[in-house]
């Protein structure tokens, strides 16, 4: 029994020494972080969505040219956006750049996907908390209304309910598929 414990001690010691020699603390943290993300994702709405009949948003990669490029003004979701594209500013078409906060108050319209021909509900949220990004300026006006329809006008700054009113860039988030019955 004692020999077995010594063997186990020796094994753990050698393993720990080799690990310490071959890896850095930072790489261990990185791998541990990846493990945590992998373990967390199945309980997020992505997994639940498959159960309640939701579909993933259309595949941008299948589109030819700028229509599938979130950094382009011609990206299909940008049919009524007015601002700087967050995909060019350290964020993405769905997420604000680090250090900014997504405005909960937004304006919402629809854009037709050139691949499947469906009209998707798009939320144009401003990302707030830093000065203007000044990269990838884009102004398109499909379905936009004049200023006197404030809830449908994209000339306004939409940083309401955020800590800062300074706007940095805008995202174009798919909320759903608009089906007229």
């Amino acid at each position, binding site marked *: 029994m004692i020999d077995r414990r010594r063997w186990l001690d020796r094994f753990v010691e050698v393993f720990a020494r080799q690990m310490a020699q071959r890896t850095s603390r930072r790489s261990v943290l990185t791998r541990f972080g990846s493990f*945590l993300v992998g373990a967390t994702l199945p309980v997020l*709405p992505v997994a639940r969505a498959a159960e309640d009949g939701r579909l*993933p*948003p259309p595949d941008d990669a299948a589109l030819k040219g700028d229509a599938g490029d979130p950094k382009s003004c011609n990206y299909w979701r940008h049919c009524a956006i007015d601002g700087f594209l967050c995909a060019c500013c350290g964020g993405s078409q*769905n997420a604000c750049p680090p250090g900014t906060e997504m405005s909960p108050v937004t304006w919402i319209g629809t854009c037709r996907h050139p691949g499947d021909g469906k009209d998707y509900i798009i939320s144009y949220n401003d990302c707030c908390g830093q000065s203007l990004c000044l990269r990838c300026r884009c102004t398109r006006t499909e379905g936009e209304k004049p200023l006197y329809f404030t809830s449908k006008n994209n000339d306004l700054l939409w940083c*309401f309910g955020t800590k800062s009113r300074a706007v940095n860039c805008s995202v174009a988030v798919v909320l759903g*598929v608009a089906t007229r*019955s």
Partner: protein
Amino acid sequence: MIRAVAVVLVAAGIATAADVSGPALDYALNCQGCHRADGSGTPGSVPALAGSVGKFLRVRGGREYVARVPGVAQAPLDDAATAGVLNWILERFGRDDLPADFSPYTAAEIGGLRRSPLTDVERVRRELLEAIARAR
């Protein structure tokens, strides 16, 4: 790294697209941008619908107020669609607060009320909230 993980999680959380139609679509396109998907609104900027809108129908003048607020009276929808989305809102966000004798809005009722939009929304709202508080 924490920021990177947060971005991944946010992107994953919104990577779905459900079919939306009828009053739910009208709500998404005309109301949700300010009142939010869950009707929670934004304190200081946009009134909440959830847990609030149904209570207005329990006091005198509340039914008319709900149909005359700017978002309803000026909605770019016809009378029938406006009645539809308003009834949907009351069902979804005010179901537990509605009076027992509640009857859904009709297109004709909306058509009549939206012809006289409120000119002092804040004052009317304040008076109705006081009436709601007294009625508890």
